[in-house]
């Protein structure tokens, strides 16, 4: 299997090569920072015109992950939509999303890009506690057993840049799942401070591959 399985706060969870987190005991799939509708937002601002197909692309990957893990529950860790206007999905995409949501528990965690409620069904939470784990958008300093997103971490290794999970004793930070998203280097002091010593970065790609988290002063 190409996933990276690890123990965290008394649970057994896996980082998938796609950038989703899988918690088999709860049949739960966690994704973060889908940033759906980024192309429309740019187009509305008369900036770079990106074609509108990225929503389908992102949802198609999510569809595949849900199918592969047979997830009964999905948690989106915020910044699912680029802004509220983007959340008004046109018909075919709204249907695609509705199909994914049908028959499973679906939790939207609020992000900094999509703070308000959206008319798509599912539960809306600022945070969610489930078993020993606590899910929120932005990591809270000092928290424990926490799963979050927001930073879009990535890492350069052997001349290649990949999105990555950051896995430490106290928290896991997920990579961005969306198609058009930039990122923050894992060697950034903000991330180093959050993760502390001994953390591992798990590269996405064809195989979820763990490497030591680059400390301050060392670049990957």
């Amino acid at each position, binding site marked *: 299997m190409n996933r990276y399985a690890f123990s965290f706060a008394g649970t057994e969870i896996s980082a998938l090569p796609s950038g989703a987190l899988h918690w088999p005991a709860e049949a739960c799939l966690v994704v973060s920072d889908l940033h759906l509708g980024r*192309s429309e937002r740019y*187009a509305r601002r*008369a*900036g*770079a*015109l*990106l*074609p*509108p*197909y990225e929503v389908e692309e992102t949802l198609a990957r999510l569809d595949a992950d849900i199918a592969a893990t047979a997830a009964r529950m999905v948690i989106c860790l915020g910044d699912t939509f680029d802004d509220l206007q983007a959340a008004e999905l046109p018909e075919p995409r709204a249907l695609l999303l509705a199909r994914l949501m049908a028959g499973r528990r679906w939790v939207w965690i609020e992000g900094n890009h999509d703070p308000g409620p959206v008319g798509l069904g599912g539960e809306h939470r600022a945070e969610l506690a489930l078993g020993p784990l606590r899910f929120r958008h932005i990591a809270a300093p000092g928290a424990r057993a926490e799963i979050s997103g927001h930073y879009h971490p990535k890492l350069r*290794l*052997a*001349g*290649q840049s990949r999105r990555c999970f950051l896995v430490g004793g106290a928290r896991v930070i997920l990579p961005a799942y969306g198609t*058009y998203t930039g990122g923050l280097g894992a060697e950034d002091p903000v991330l180093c401070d959050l993760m502390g010593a*001994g953390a*591992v970065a798990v*590269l996405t*790609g*064809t*195989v979820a*591959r*763990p*490497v*030591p988290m680059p400390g301050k002063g060392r670049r990957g």
Partner: protein
Amino acid sequence: MRALPAPFSDWFSARGWSIHPHQRALLDRAADPALLLIAPTGGGKTLAGFLPTLAELADGARKGLHTLYISPLKALAADIRRNLTVPVTEMGLPIRIEDRTGDTSYTKRRRQRADPPHILLTTPESLALLLSYEDAPRIFAGLGRVIVDEVHALAESKRGDQLMLCLSRLQSLAPGLRRVGLSATVEDPGAIARFLARHPDPCAIVHADPGPDPDIAMLTTEAAPPWAGGGGRYAIPEVLAAIRRHRITLVFHNTRAQAELFFRDLWLANEDGLPIAIHHGSLAREARERVEAAMVAGELRAVVCTGSLDLGIDWGDVDLVIQVGAPKNVKRLVQRIGRANHRYNAPSKALLVPANRWEVVECQAALEAVKDHDLDGDPRGPGPRDVLCQHILVAACSGPFEADALYREVTSAGPYAALKRADFDACLDFCATGGYALKAYDRWQRLMVRDGRWTLRDPRAARDIRMNIGTITDAEMVKVRWQNRMGGAPLGEVEESFASTLTPGETFLIGGQVVRFVGLRELALEVAPAPGREPKIAVYSGTKFSTSTQLSERILRMLQAESWPDLPAATAEWLNLQREVSRLPAPDRLLVESFPAEGRAHLCIYGFMGRAAQQTLGLLLTHRMEELGLNPLGFVSTDYATLIRGLDPVTDAAALLDREGLRAGLGSWLAGNAVMKRTFRNVALVAGLIARNLPGARKSGRQATFSSDILYDTLRRYDPDHLLMQVTREEAMRGLVNFGRIEAMLDRVGGRIDHLTLPRVTPLAAPLFLEHGRVPVEGAARERLLAETAERLMAEAGLG
């Protein structure tokens, strides 16, 4: 033969001049609908072009625009205005001459539209802009002649295609319009004539006396040229000595970066303090104009330059041209040599300086080609459709048009004579809707039919269209200037992609000075002087020309000789050694070598296809090796060979080089490559799919690249037959991708592949190890290295 009108014969005789036969011929054939003059530099070409105009305007009876002169360079338009004003004033002719370029003031341009001069000197882009105005029919109604200068240079690019479409428009506005083309010596004058003339009008070709053969040789130097690299800095003592022996020397380089490095080292060695300047396209206009003025005033002994001095302007007293680096192209070499000695019937003097040992061979081949008058050039295909799309949009700006009429007009332009109606309609549809996959966006729906005529859906779109006129799609540039406390004066510009790699404190060379990057302010790079610091980087990835097909073939033939008495001993020994340990490449065979080096397997393919095609071959072959599990790591290409390194050796090169496999690779995998994306970006800019200048918001080059890359990926997946994808694939046959030359190489070789397995690096392959510009391959080998690195790091950290 008509008598020369009195003011002209008096003027000529007052100077003790007599009219050249080709100038006479152009006067005699002034009524021809199209004429092409082929003349060497300094042959009185421009005057020949203008004499019929001056004769027709001499009686002062004419009002309004009579002659349009078009040159590829703004500077040339201004220069010709000055040069033409002299005889006109001296003969007392009642003729108003003005130039109009991007540099002309707004007020002056407005006045020119209201009250055009007799003779207007302009560029293709300024002409297209003029034609986009609603009053174009009034401005051009009485136009009698159009003179296209340096038509050989224009005919090589989309600028020429656009110009010919503009001429077809002009011809409709002024049906009696006569065309004259002025060209340097070219390999196929007939092709230029067909390009220029209204289809199917005839176009007579007038040949001026080509003058004596140039005096050209290779510079002999104390130090032998290095094994690899460019720049020719080893030859600086001899170059300085040559400059000292001549009045004015032009030192040509193939790239701006090389010119900068050479100029810096030349100054370090210039103990006599000879006045030497630098001139290239990335320098600020002010800097270039200073150099040009000093040159005209005779204050300089040498100018280190690039193609920016290839065309046009008469520098007077240049008596030596030095070409540093292999000329790559014989025709361009001959034209550069012509810059020396502008006096008619005096031989031009030139020296070639090979930058490395391989270029010694290439320079020798080029010398022989010049002696044999064997000019090179690849025939250009029909006019590209992205240019046509722009033309359609520009036509809509000037007013509603009927599709039938515009189609007839377009097919009267030489490059579009064979354009099918269906292709024209597809271009029109693209301009109207953006094409299938992009129909959802209003922005790309720009034309609509009203009362049977095509018109702009939103007249305000005309502003955007006008701002994007032109077919020059250079990389986005960022201005460089001194920081404010240094006065803030402009120095020039660098490519945005280069600028984005700079961090404050890093140094680079511009205008011959080492500067330190201070910061980015108002979209300009601010720099401070950093004299004496070693410039860490000096990159403007200016045009890298590929060695021409004809020159490459000549080199291959040369390699078949028994011995090379004309080559320097070091180079001849090197070739002999290659013959001993391996083989020398041959015209009708393909040499492929496999050998281990630096702990990796290497494969070297001597295709002699020029840098662009060798680069494409590298991309295609490494992809095939990836599929076959041969774990390629990367490759490097030069004009003559591609060297691939990988984890596993290749045993069957012939299978790798299978034509169908390569074609399939071009269709599928290469289609996703950055080179193809860049090709698409250029096409999308020309066709108006993406904008160069959005009013009010400057879009950075990176943003433009970003969105054009994503547009490309989208079209590839959802609309692969989109018009612009078709154009991109056509462009891929030449230019950056140049798959056409890979096909030609396979034809030439016809399956005769010599694959040699050798114990170590061969003499001919050795320089490739020193080449810059290695391309890494993203694939299983990288994944393997990544996995190894990850495991090692985990183990070291005690986490494994």
